[in-house]
């Protein structure tokens, strides 16, 4: 696969656009927010130092790398974040603490591929077609993953959602 180095400006731009979502994504693997930020920062610092990556799929690469680094760190730390006392890795305009925790817990219960699809679509702003392109997955598969994920999230959040 052809790779290229991003310029520092491109790396900073990617960080600005996706850094927060990637940190939240890392949290969904059980990391606390500080560790998640470290994971994401390390990843981008490597890019700043000139690590090459596939030019057509930087966002997909970032998500995959974040997932791998988070799982490694989680394995090394051998600790789990308590689902009920977990810190918040999302904010909500209404400021609802419970609402955020509800969403976080629901996200954690999703299979990895579905969770990745939700993050890429909702918080990284990609279309299903773009997700299919950058992850090398058929569009139908991506659409199914996303649909199932949203259904599961809706079921989990439905009580709050109906208010």
């Amino acid at each position, binding site marked *: 696969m052809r790779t290229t180095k991003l310029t520092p400006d491109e790396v900073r731009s990617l960080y600005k656009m996706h850094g927060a979502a990637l940190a939240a994504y890392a949290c969904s693997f059980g990391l606390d927010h500080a560790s998640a930020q470290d994971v994401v920062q390390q990843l981008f610092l490597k890019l700043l130092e000139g690590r090459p990556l596939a030019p057509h799929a930087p966002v997909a690469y970032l998500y995959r790398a974040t997932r791998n680094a988070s799982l490694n760190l989680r394995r090394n730390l051998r600790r789990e974040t308590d689902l009920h006392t977990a810190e918040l890795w*999302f904010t909500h305009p209404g400021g609802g603490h419970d609402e955020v925790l509800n*969403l976080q817990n629901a996200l954690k219960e999703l299979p990895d591929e579905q969770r990745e699809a939700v993050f890429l679509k909702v918080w990284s702003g990609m279309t299903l077609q773009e997700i299919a392109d950058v992850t090398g997955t058929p569009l139908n598969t991506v659409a199914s993953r996303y649909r199932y994920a949203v259904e599961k999230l809706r079921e989990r959040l439905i009580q709050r959602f109906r208010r």
Partner: protein
Amino acid sequence: MSLYDDETERYLAEFRPRAVQPLEPMPKGRDAPLLWVAAVVAVVLLAVGLLWFAHREAGRLREAANIQPRKVSATRAWRYESTLALTRLALEDGERLESLLAGESRKELPPCRGEQSTLSVLAKE
């Protein structure tokens, strides 16, 4: 996707990931100069070691090449010289090597020739 899912999606989009700290490259190498110095010292030490070794080996070879038969026969030091020197001597002057070996063997073995040799004495008896 159903309208209901669109609504769910909009609801999800209301949540925003918590902000992260700005990307700040780590200060590059406060330890870098020290690493450079350590690397240079290591290279210099290695080079000095190699030079010393090469010099020592060259000296040995020179010494071995300059072995004089008379000196060798006068002492028993030849025993401790390298096989290289003996080989060289054999190639350059076979007779000298023979005499050297014969001389040295006489020092080691009981005499078996001449009037006072052990064999002669035994034969007379």
